[in-house]
């Protein structure tokens, strides 16, 4: 029911919206909850477990009952609090957790079964048969209990992440926060003032208080105008500060476009902020707590503060005939506000025996509400007085059990709040978060004047820490009513008295937990699920632990609280992950030949973040093997071209570059001649192989290292660590140049023919022997040439600045084709290297040593290097270690499988008989059968033996002959030829 002349809404702007398919209208400034109440809608949801009809309980972000789904299709958003969602033209909201409709919910039958569904019922009930839990019970329970559903489609909304920095972050823009921001702003500090509401003011918008003789909201507007005019102050509304982290880092969620449903110019729906603040003032206010009594969950029963907020801010009376119940003077304020607005107040039930009386409304002192009645909405309450019970007709009960300061953020860094008996509430423990000062209601100071004073003081404390001079600020005049409370948590009696509205937890459930010895508050929480829903117990935690304290005969402070964890209010994962979904999660790196490879029909495979061609199919080829075999033969017989730019390239310069490389590689590099390349092996400090690659000496003080594609980043980090951490005295520096150079392997007997004609002068064995390197001009472009070979053929790698890569690849591929060759992909590259027994990370997988891969002699005895000492541990060089061998099938089965294990020919394939394993396999078109590399105990001494390969997973057994890992051209004549 809308009250004439009340509220901070714009009545000139009527806004249509839909709820459960029915068209309603509200005004600019309304939330969905206020607009529905104004339209007389009290039933807004069904409870989680029992499907009890529920209405709105609060007017803020802590709302447990009025959760709705907004929108439909891919942009459908479940569990939106009607108290937070602002209405806009075209808003479509639906109730949740009901079937077939909110008004007629068949699952409400659960409520009849309530005696069997108490705390821990599913731990006790669904014990047998065991297999039924997963298949029968759990799916049924999940269907019956719950909140809104996701659409199941990809999220179409846009989200952003952003950073902000400031001297002072003020959290909450009620009287305390506004005052703190004003003081700090006037002092010239960089200030961010964040408030979760759609407008600044906090409780000042919900009450009829005056400040300096002006209505509270007018004072708010004036302060806000002054703050807006300051360049050093940033105001953020609809922004919930949700978490506090180390060194002044705060997480905040800004709801950018939930309030208008429009996303102009791709503006985000939400922005997840990380705010770094030197100091902060917490002015988060307080949350009102309900009182537990029988059937206290009927639509129409809400907190007194919410009734005043709907009345004063939104001009809505939550009922026509209101009753008020509680234990503080707030109930009298509620009654006065309602009466002043012309709403009938049937009775004020004050649990205090010394409650003040009134001429304007009946006050029942020392009385308690002990029950309610009404179908899908409150119709009457039962009041218990010393003289007996009395029934009062009412359509709205405003209740209060006192206020809980919002201490949450002060507890995010392991802090625990302190119990204050005088206000029956927990308050922040001083110093709980370094650099954060609480002020106002969140600090247990509830009067407006106290909030204003503490806001000034908190800002002053923060500014003093920052060395900023405090400006003169007068404390505005405001009410300073003392807070007087008599503890009231639960009204005794039969029936179900609800504590946690959202998870359907009653006083009885908490007591049951205590009886079953779940006496710790953490155990009680998990046993009853109290405090575990989306409101995270904001409405119920303190009352539940008070009930637990009572049931276990302990004090509240002794019982303690559960742990407060971020986020304070729900934060969408989509917002936290903004920019990191899809391609943002896994960026793609493309080589300069990428487009040409795709144009040639090559399937691209991932190599880390890189994409590399798998093979280049020719017309008529229907399987990858046909293409691969052809490409291998092409390299062995003519010439092939392959983009090898993804290998890590690290430019190393300085007078001590050689000495440095001697220290990171097992072998010597300081002795390498300028214009030569050497294969190098790198160990980890524990003696195992880390990476391998070739390093070229381009000048006296200039080397170029290549790493494997996978380890490029790790090797770079490693080099920087070894230099900065272990050998800072060496004059050397590094730069990753992987992306600066495009590099192509040109391999095969006709590789020299291919390159001649591109270079200034023809290549010769004298000037360009195997393992030579140096600068060349490639069609006029300054490039580099390396005579190195991974394929075992006469081969080169030619490098040009990346901007020439695409062009060079086309030229090389065309020339190769003219010579009977062409480009080759990863599959052929792999076959070529297995035929030559060259290792990759399939072999140097982190558990193999130089000794294991047959390179023990590469660990130079003339010098120290990373990993050398540990590589000499007895266990790493002893007899029986699994060492690199080649394998070829000799029995009936011709199949080799990587990952299979090796056994002696006659042995059972069991763990104790294990002799080794297979790491790399391929079909060798050169040899005409499958070949494999693997590790076999004492392998090098067993060449010629027959072993049994068993793949237990794929059920394959193959007899293999153990051979030298170099299958093809063991003398290496072809690379030199």
């Amino acid at each position, binding site marked *: 029911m809308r009250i004439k002349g009340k509220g901070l809404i714009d009545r000139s702007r009527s806004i249509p919206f839909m709820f459960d398919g029915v068209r309603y209208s509200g005004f600019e400034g309304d939330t969905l909850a206020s607009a529905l109440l104004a339209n007389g809608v009290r039933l807004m949801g069904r409870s989680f477990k029992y499907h009890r009809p529920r209405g709105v309980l609060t007017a803020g972000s802590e709302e447990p009952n009025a959760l709705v789904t907004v929108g439909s299709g891919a942009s459908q958003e479940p569990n939106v609090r009607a108290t937070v969602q602002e209405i806009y033209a075209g808003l479509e909201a639906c109730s949740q957790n009901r079937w077939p409709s909110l008004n007629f919910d068949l699952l409400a039958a659960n409520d009849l079964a309530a005696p069997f569904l108490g705390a821990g019922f599913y731990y006790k009930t669904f014990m047998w048969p065991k297999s039924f839990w997963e298949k029968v019970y759990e799916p049924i329970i999940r269907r019956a209990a719950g909140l809104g559903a996701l659409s199941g489609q990809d999220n179409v909304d846009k989200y952003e992440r952003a950073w902000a920095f400031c001297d002072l972050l003020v959290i909450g823009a009620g009287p305390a926060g506004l005052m703190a921001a004003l003081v700090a702003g006037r002092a010239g500090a960089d200030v961010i003032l964040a408030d979760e509401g759609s407008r600044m003011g906090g409780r000042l918008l919900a009450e009829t208080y005056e400040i300096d003789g002006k209505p509270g909201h007018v004072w708010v507007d004036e302060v806000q105008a002054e703050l807006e005019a300051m360049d050093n102050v940033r105001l953020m509304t609809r922004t919930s500060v949700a978490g506090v982290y180390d060194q002044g880092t705060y997480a905040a969620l800004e709801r950018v476009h939930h309030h208008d449903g429009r996303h102009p110019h791709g503006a985000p729906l939400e922005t997840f902020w990380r705010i770094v603040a030197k100091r902060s003032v917490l002015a988060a206010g307080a949350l009102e707590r309900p009182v537990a009594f029988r059937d206290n969950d009927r639509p129409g029963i809400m907190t007194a503060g919410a009734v005043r907020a709907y009345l004063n801010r939104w001009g809505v009376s939550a009922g026509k005939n209101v009753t008020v119940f509680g234990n503080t003077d707030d109930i009298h304020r509620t009654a006065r506000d309602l009466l002043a607005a012309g709403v009938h107040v049937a009775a004020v039930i004050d649990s205090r025996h010394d409650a003040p009386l009134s001429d304007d409304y009946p006050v029942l002192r020392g009385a308690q509400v002990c029950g309610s009645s009404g179908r899908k909405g409150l119709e009457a309450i039962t009041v218990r007085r010393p003289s007996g019970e009395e029934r009062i007709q009412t359509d709205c009960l405003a209740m209060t059990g006192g206020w809980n300061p919002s201490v949450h953020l002060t507890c995010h860094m392991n802090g625990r709040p302190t119990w204050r008996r005088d206000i029956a509430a927990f308050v922040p423990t001083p110093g709980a978060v370094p650099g954060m000062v609480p002020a106002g209601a969140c600090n247990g100071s509830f009067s407006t004047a106290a909030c204003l004073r503490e806001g000034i003081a908190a800002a002053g404390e923060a500014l003093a820490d920052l060395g900023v001079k405090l400006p003169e600020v007068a404390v505005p005049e405001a009410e300073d009513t003392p807070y007087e409370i008599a503890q009231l948590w639960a009204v005794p009696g039969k029936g179900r008295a609800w504590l946690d509205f959202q998870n359907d937890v009653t006083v009885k459930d908490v007591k049951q937990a205590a009886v079953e010895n779940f006496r710790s508050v953490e155990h009680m929480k998990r046993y009853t699920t109290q405090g575990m829903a989306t409101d995270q117990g904001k409405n119920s935690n303190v009352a539940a632990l008070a009930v637990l304290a009572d049931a276990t005969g302990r004090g509240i402070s002794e019982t303690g609280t559960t742990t407060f964890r971020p986020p304070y209010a729900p934060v969408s994962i989509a917002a936290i992950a903004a920019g990191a979904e899809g391609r943002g999660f896994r960026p793609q790196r493309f080589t300069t030949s990428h487009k040409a490879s795709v144009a040639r029909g090559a399937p691209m495979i991932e190599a880390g973040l890189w994409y590399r061609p798998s093979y280049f199919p020719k017309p008529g080829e229907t399987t990858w093997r046909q293409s691969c075999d052809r490409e291998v033969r092409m390299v062995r017989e003519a010439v092939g071209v392959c983009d090898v730019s993804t290998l890590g390239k690290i430019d190393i310069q300085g007078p001590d570059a050689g000495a440095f490389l001697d220290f990171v590689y097992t072998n010597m590099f300081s002795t390498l001649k300028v214009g030569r390349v050497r294969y190098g092996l790198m160990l980890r400090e*524990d003696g195992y192989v880390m990476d391998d690659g070739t390093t070229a000496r381009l000048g006296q003080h200039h080397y170029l290292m290549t790493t494997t594609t996978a380890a490029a980043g790790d090797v770079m980090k490693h080099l920087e660590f070894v230099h*900065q951490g*272990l050998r800072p005295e060496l004059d050397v520096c590094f730069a990753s140049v992987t992306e600066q150079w495009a590099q192509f392997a040109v391999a095969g007997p006709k590789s020299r023919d291919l390159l001649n004609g591109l270079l200034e002068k023809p290549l010769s064995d004298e000037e360009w022997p195997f393992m030579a390197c140096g600068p060349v001009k490639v069609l006029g472009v300054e490039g580099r040439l390396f005579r190195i070979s991974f394929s075992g053929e006469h081969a080169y790698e030619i490098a040009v600045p990346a901007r020439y890569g695409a062009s060079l690849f086309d030229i090389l591929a065309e020339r190769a084709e003219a010579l009977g060759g062409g480009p080759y992909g990863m599959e052929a590259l792999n076959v070529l290297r297995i035929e030559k027994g060259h290792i990759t990370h399939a072999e140097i997988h982190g558990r193999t040593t130089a000794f294991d891969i047959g390179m023990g002699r590469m660990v130079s005895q003339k010098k120290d290097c990373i990993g050398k000492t540990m590589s000499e541990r007895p266990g790493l060089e002893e007899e029986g270690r699994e060492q690199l061998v080649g394998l070829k099938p000799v029995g009936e089965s011709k199949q080799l499988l990587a990952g299979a294990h090796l056994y002696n020919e006659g042995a059972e394939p069991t763990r104790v008989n294990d002799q080794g394993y297979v790491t790399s396999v391929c079909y060798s078109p050169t040899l005409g059968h499958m070949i494999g590399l693997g590790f076999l105990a004492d392998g090098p001494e067993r060449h010629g033996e027959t072993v049994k390969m068993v793949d237990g997973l794929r059920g394959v057994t193959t007899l293999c002959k153990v051979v030298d890992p170099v299958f093809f051209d063991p003398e290496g004549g072809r690379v030199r030829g």
Partner: protein
Amino acid sequence: MRITCPYCGERDRREFYYRGAATDLDRPAPDAGEEAWENFVFLRENPAGVTRDLWYHEGGCGAWVVVTRNTVTHEVLETRLASEARS
């Protein structure tokens, strides 16, 4: 968490790569013996309190930084370049 890079100033920890205990800087001589090497490669303290560890400013200048911090209070007490941290 915020870490002050000696070159770049205070930065979010997401810019850094964490390696482990700063004892990695105290590499023994090759002939220091089994115990010294076992200590260096494998054994780590796990203190509730002040600890020194190595962070790499990978998303920044590439400096290895020794961070002295308290694992209980999460205070960052000191940051130094690894190249200058060895005594």
